[in-house]
């Protein structure tokens, strides 16, 4: 009895070890991700290209659970590498507010020359921004804005309202040109209780009203692929006939497209958001309902690093007359269609 048990135990053990070894072999993502997914950097222009005073730039952003945020971190790191006079000091990315505060405080203590912060929540980290500014460290506030202008030297971010307007304008123009009366326009939003989602929806609604159209079925996914799939599958049931669909985010768009394929629907066209490389490739192939996307590009992180360097070195922006970097820069949302996708593809971020 114990002899057979011993043999059985040995067999199970061997099986376990074998399975474990086989499984470990299956974790590699080598070919697809060997290159840091196309980080987007820009070269400094004119006088600003010349190396100046050596500066350290601290960087804090949320943890990437989303291709867009991952691209932010990658772009920032890559841009910093472009400069010989910049030392890049990133802290551990985290989605926890308290941890982000603690991490940035270590940078303040280190007395970095400039800080680039994408806060998990602008309101909750405003005090931290003020602390850094009061300590003499210029803060470049990226994307999610602090509550008080005293908390940052320069804000740079995308135009959420403008994204909605771009999407609404594209859909409105296309439907008008096709002469559709009373079109059914769907909207798949991201996380509904974020201000950025509300701004995007508002821009969308107001742009459509210029054409006399209004939004039909509108539901919120949660920026995840599975959420996009689930919500879209149900929305397609709610609307047996759709004329157009705007999906706020290309990452959740993977799920949205999957749901559309599974439901075998193609009577409408779809517009994406944020400008992921996957979406741009789909637009280029032109075999699905995805016909356009409106950008909210994570290249803003590269620009933020460039600005941080200029501010720390007391330089201005080349083409502008003033000697100081502006306090607020809103990046435009571009509409990408098949006609210009080739130009924007290098700027797309991998999901």
């Amino acid at each position, binding site marked *: 009895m114990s002899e057979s048990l011993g043999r059985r135990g040995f067999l199970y053990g061997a099986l376990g070890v074998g399975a474990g070894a086989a499984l470990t*072999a299956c974790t590699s993502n080598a070919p697809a991700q060997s290159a840091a997914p196309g980080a987007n950097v820009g070269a400094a222009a004119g006088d600003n290209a010349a190396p100046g005073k050596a500066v350290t730039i601290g960087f804090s952003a949320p943890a990437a*659970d989303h291709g867009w945020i991952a691209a932010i971190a990658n772009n920032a790191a890559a841009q910093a590498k472009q400069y010989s006079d910049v030392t890049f000091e990133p802290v551990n990315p985290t989605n926890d507010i308290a941890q982000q505060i603690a991490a940035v405080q270590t940078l303040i203590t280190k007395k970095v020359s400039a800080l680039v912060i994408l806060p998990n929540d602008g309101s909750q980290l405003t005090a931290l921004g003020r602390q850094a500014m009061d300590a003499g460290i210029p803060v470049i506030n990226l994307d999610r804005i602090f509550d008080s202008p005293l908390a940052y030297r320069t804000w740079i971010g995308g135009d959420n309202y403008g994204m909605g307007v771009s999407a609404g304008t594209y859909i409105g123009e296309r439907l008008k040109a096709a002469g559709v009366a009373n079109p059914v326009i769907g909207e798949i939003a991201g996380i509904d209780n974020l201000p950025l989602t509300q701004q995007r929806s508002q821009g969308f609604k107001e742009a459509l009203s210029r054409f006399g159209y209004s939004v039909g079925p*509108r539901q919120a996914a949660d920026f995840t692929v599975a959420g996009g799939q*689930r919500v879209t599958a*149900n929305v397609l*049931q709610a609307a047996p006939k759709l004329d157009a669909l705007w999906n706020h985010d290309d990452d959740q768009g993977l799920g949205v497209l999957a749901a559309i394929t*599974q439901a075998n629907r193609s009577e409408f066209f779809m517009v994406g958001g944020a400008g992921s490389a996957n979406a741009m490739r789909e637009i280029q192939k032109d075999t699905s309902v995805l016909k356009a996307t409106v950008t909210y590009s994570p290249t803003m992180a590269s620009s933020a690093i460039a600005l941080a360097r200029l501010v720390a070195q007391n330089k201005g922006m080349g083409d502008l007359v003033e000697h100081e970097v502006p306090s607020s820069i809103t990046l435009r949302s571009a509409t990408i269609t098949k006609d210009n996708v080739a130009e924007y593809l290098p700027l797309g971020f991998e*999901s």
Partner: protein
Amino acid sequence: MAEPATLKNGAAHRRSGFGDLLDSSAGRNLGLVAVLLILGIVGVATADTFLTTSNLLTILTSASIIGVITVGVTFVIIGGGIDLSVGKVMALASVWATTVATQSYGPFVMILCALAVGAGAGLVNGLLIAYGRIVPFIVTLAALITAQGLAEQISGRRSQIVTDQTITAIATTRVLGVPLLVFIFAAVVAIGWVVLNRTTFGRRTFAIGGNPEAARLAGLNVKRHTAALYALSGLCCGIAAIMIAALTNTGSSTHGTLYELDAIAAVIIGGTLLSGGRGTLIGSILGVLVFTVITNLFVLNNLATEVQNIAKGVIIVVAVLIQARARRSSA
């Protein structure tokens, strides 16, 4: 204490045990069926596309993944434990099965990989709980966090696109007009029901959940059985992982967030006691369907997100009340 109501009339065990079990489970589930009917009536009244085949199939497809997970969780809870890690173990399995390396070996290996990862994670949970004698809540909570971290590590926090056509076909294929995913769901439920209600494995699960000490004294190997229950739950997560990879075309560490709450809520609404020893699989599945129909109704009626959350909470409480009343009247 474990209770097929054989003690009620003191009659001999086997036949009336069967009959009573059937009766009482039907009684418990009648409440949920009533809730579903009410939801159905609301659906027909408020949305003209509710009763279409296409919509009903969408509901079933939406329910299929969480449903498969709920089967595993039902076993664990009846056995007296709890499994908080199911959502993220599914995510981990989906990520592991969709790495470039695994996909290069073809669909069969992808499926095996997902099942192995799921069952393996479940087995680790089970061994720690049964032999390490650590509280299930803590072990599975730790497993949840670890699985998520591991999934993020392997995937680099990116969505891994499924390029294998066979796997994506799982979500698009229809047999006799019904999606393949629904068939997989039905098969898992059927097998689960048979195992729970018609095999000694199932009987032992009830016994161990009801009174582990008595079960041990009766000669059951409680530790080994407990470990097996968690491995079973993990296996269900592995199956769900392939299903979600097919449905969303991706493996991602973001899959399965808070699925354990939905699964546990469905199990409890379905009449299974959180303390173990009593429960039905059909009840859990009805619970899953209640949630899925509610979500579908909300979208068909284009309700705003805030309204949806409040309404869902209210409906859950009402469902449990109706269900408890039905149970009382049938006991």
